[in-house]
């Protein structure tokens, strides 16, 4: 028993790290093996995977469900598009500014909203409703201010160029370069988020999920930690949105709304809300599957129904999602502990 838990406690390697390495190596190898649509579309799905992680750390670790992830994603996407469009003729690469504004924008918006809601003691269902409202507000805003945002037509966004002073200029117009740039963003995002959630911060967040009263009585400022984890979640959604916009070359109100937020919840539930890797993979798998199902003529009209049934089956059969299932099959590892069940 002690032998099993010791390595996890020392925080060196866990089973999930091996799985993560395998997933990222596989993703890195795909453009070497193939080209075309798969290489084009996968970076978008990886970014949806980051969006899923943004919810997983909030929901799986913090026990806080949010139907507002699309709002932060859209803030990232529109910030990227608008900055790239309007910030021209500057010495600095406007895409970098766009990413910064989109990321910080998502994070700060979440921090502010979290601050007001959590310090007022808003929880559970009321919090869910508040985040739903946020998605609606952002969707309506980008629809209404069509002069700026393109309204229902969406906003065209350029593919960014990677620059490094005067000695590097790499266009991301082709599929492979942007694929690797996105992967090079996704991997550190995963590593940093994982490290944070395994460290002191993540443990405190799990403690709050498990027993708020005990945490308060221990001296933790519970609303502050909730606000911080919500802010972190908004930050991740913002990064995902910024890169998504430049990859997809548009920012659109559908990526701001309640429906899209609900999809994020579904990806995470299927992938496994306790596992950042699980939700990342869950998003990629479900997004690919929806895409595939919607392209098959015979079931074209039914695929949302098929997805819904899969969702219900996963929730009913294994509440820990795919990650929980894998963990169970692999024998109970020590790593699931900290995330709790």
């Amino acid at each position, binding site marked *: 028993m002690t032998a099993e838990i010791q390595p996890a406690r020392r925080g060196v390697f866990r089973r999930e790290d091996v799985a993560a390495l395998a997933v990222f190596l596989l993703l890195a190898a795909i453009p070497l093996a193939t080209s075309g649509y798969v290489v084009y579309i996968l970076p978008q799905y990886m970014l949806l995977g980051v969006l899923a992680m943004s919810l997983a750390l909030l929901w799986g670790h913090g026990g806080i469900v949010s139907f507002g992830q699309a709002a932060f994603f859209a803030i990232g996407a529109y910030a990227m598009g608008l900055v790239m469009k309007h910030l021209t003729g500057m010495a600095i690469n406007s895409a970098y500014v766009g990413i910064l504004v989109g990321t910080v924008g998502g994070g700060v918006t979440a921090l502010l909203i979290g601050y007001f809601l959590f310090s007022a003691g808003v929880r559970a269902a009321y919090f869910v409703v508040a985040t739903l409202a946020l998605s609606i507000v952002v969707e309506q805003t980008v629809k209404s201010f069509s002069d700026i945002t393109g309204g229902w037509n969406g906003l065209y966004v350029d593919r960014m160029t990677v620059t490094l002073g005067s000695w590097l200029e790499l266009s991301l117009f082709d599929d492979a370069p942007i694929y690797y740039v996105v992967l090079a963003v996704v991997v550190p995002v995963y590593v940093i988020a994982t490290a944070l959630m395994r460290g002191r911060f993540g443990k405190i967040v799990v403690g709050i999920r498990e027993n708020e009263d005990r945490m308060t009585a221990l*001296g933790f400022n519970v609303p502050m930690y909730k606000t911080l984890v919500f802010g972190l979640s908004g930050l991740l959604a913002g990064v995902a949105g910024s890169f998504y916009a430049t990859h997809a070359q548009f920012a659109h109100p559908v990526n701001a709304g309640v429906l899209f937020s609900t999809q994020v919840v579904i990806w995470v539930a299927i992938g496994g809300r306790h596992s950042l890797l699980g939700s990342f993979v869950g998003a990629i798998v479900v997004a690919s599957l929806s895409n595939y199902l919607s392209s098959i003529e015979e079931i074209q009209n039914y695929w949302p129904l098929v997805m819904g049934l899969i969702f219900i089956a996963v929730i009913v059969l294994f509440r820990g999602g795919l990650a929980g299932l894998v963990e169970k099959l692999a024998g109970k590892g020590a790593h699931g502990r900290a995330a709790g069940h």
Partner: protein
Amino acid sequence: MAELLVIEGLTKRFRGLVANNDVSFALAAGELRCIIGPNGAGKTTFISMISGHVVPTSGRILFKSRDITKLPVHLRARIGIGRKFQTPTVFDNLSVYENIELAVLATPTPSRGRHARIMRTLDLVRLAEQSDRMVGALAHGQRQWLEIGILLAGEAQLLLLDEPTAGMTAEETHSTGELLRRLVRELELSAIIIEHDINFIRDLKAPVTVLHLGRVLVEGSFADIERNEQVRSVYLGNA
């Protein structure tokens, strides 16, 4: 001995009901004190005001000479007030180790020292063997000990213990008494213990405060209290 906790004229009204009525109280550093009284006497309300969970209607609470009457719960915890609730409030879905770890994370213990500190606490409350077990699977008595361990690991100096032996066997109750006395002696902690178990209170050999209808009825040694006519009539009449 310096006064650790001084309470002046504390009153709590819940609408019409006066749960605590002009209670004054003092606890020295390193002192162990028992609070007894029939159901509804206001014992839990009293320690809830010390921990910050209930805001007094009037009166003052001084901890280490500082007025903490209006301080929020988490800030009181940070200055050393640790509370064990009447219904054990622990992390049921986490392991015993993780429970204590969270308490250590509330203190400024550097990360290198955490593991040792957790193990020391587990030894103290005799849960080292259970380290990897889920708390939900522990026996009732062990959960009570765990909550005491959480307070210790959280570096509480004043322990507020609401019925710490509830649900324990006679044997467990006895060792809890020994543990508490040892903690007060060796770690120089202070404690206020609400209890119903007469044998346990006798074993503690600590001064007793009797609450009745929200007021302090009498204070004194266990022997004095046992002989007191008023106390006898309160217990015979109401309990």
